[in-house]
C-alpha cells in the first residue's frame, strides 16, 4: 500500500490518488475531525519512518514554519521513498496576496527550487554548501495560482 501524506492540510483535504493508496491528513492540531496525524513540523524528526512515504503534498505549509525551507525539504527527503515525490506550493515574493497572511515567514523567488536540484546551476553552486539533499525537479510553475510557486520534485536516493 502506498502512503500519501498531506502536510499542513488546513481545510484542503486530499483523496487517495488511486487504488492501493492511503491518504493521511496532517496538521499542527486537530482543528477538524479528518486530521489524522497531529505534529508540529518545527519539531524534527517528523513522525514517519525513513523511506516510508510515496508522496507528499506540502501546499502552503513550509512558509509557516520556524525551520528553514532547506531543513523542511531535507526532512521530506528523509521520509520519502526513493523516487517519491513532493508537490510543493510556496507564496511568491512579488504577489500582494502572499502578504495577507500574518503567519508567512518567507517568500519564494521563481527559481528558488533550483537550489534543490544538483543539475541546475544554482543547485550545483549551493547544494553541497547549504547541506541540501538532492532532488530532481519534475516541474515548476509560477502561474499555478494567484500567488504561489508550485513545484513537483522527486527525491534522488
Amino acid at each position, binding site marked *: 500500500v502506498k502512503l500519501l501524506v498531506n502536510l499542513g492540510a488546513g481545510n484542503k483535504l486530499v483523496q487517495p490518488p488511486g487504488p492501493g493508496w492511503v491518504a493521511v491528513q496532517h496538521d499542527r492540531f486537530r482543528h477538524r475531525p479528518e486530521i489524522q496525524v497531529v505534529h508540529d513540523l518545527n519539531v524534527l524528526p517528523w513522525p514517519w519512518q525513513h523511506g516510508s512515504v510515496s508522496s507528499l503534498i506540502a501546499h502552503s505549509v513550509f512558509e509557516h514554519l520556524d525551520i528553514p525551507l532547506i531543513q523542511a525539504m531535507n526532512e521530506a527527503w528523509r521520509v520519502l521513498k526513493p523516487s517519491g515525490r513532493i508537490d510543493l506550493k510556496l507564496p511568491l515574493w512579488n504577489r500582494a496576496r502572499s502578504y495577507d497572511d500574518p*503567519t508567512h515567514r518567507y517568500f519564494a523567488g521563481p527559481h528558488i527550487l533550483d537550489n534543490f536540484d544538483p543539475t541546475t546551476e544554482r543547485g550545483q553552486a549551493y547544494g553541497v554548501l547549504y547541506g541540501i539533499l538532492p532532488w530532481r525537479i519534475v516541474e515548476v510553475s509560477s502561474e499555478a495560482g494567484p500567488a504561489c510557486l508550485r513545484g513537483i520534485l522527486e527525491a534522488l536516493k
Partner: protein
Amino acid sequence: VVNHDLFAHSPEINYLCDLNLLPWPWADSSIDAICSWSVFEHLKITPLEAFNECWRILRPGGSLEVKMPLWDSDEGHNDLTHRWWIGHHGWNGLDPDTERGRDYAFYGTKPWRIVGQNEVPGGSSLYGKLEPRK
C-alpha cells in the same frame, strides 16, 4: 499612559519588557487602548501571536491601533531589523466578518472587528484600528 519599550533608551520609557516573551506582563482584559506603531515587524513571534496577545490584554470595547510596513514599499525593506511585512488588506484575517477571517479561523486567531484599515500617507505602512470581539 504607559510608554513601553525593550530598553530605556529615553526617559519617557516607563515600562520595559521583551514582547517576544509570552505572555506579556499585563493581565487579561486590563487595558483600554493599545498603540502599536511599527512594532510587530521587529518581533520574532508572528504578528498573529502578537495580535492574539493584544486581544487577551484588551478589555471588551477596548481598541488597538497598529501600523506595519507594507510588503511593496521600499521603505519597509530599508530597516535591518524588520522580519515581517503586510498586505494591503492585511488585517482581514483577524475579522470573522471577512472571507479570509472565516477561511483561516482554524489558525486559532482571536476575533477582532476592523474599524479602520488604510495606507498611511506616504504608502509605506498599513494602519489599522481594531476592536476585540470578547
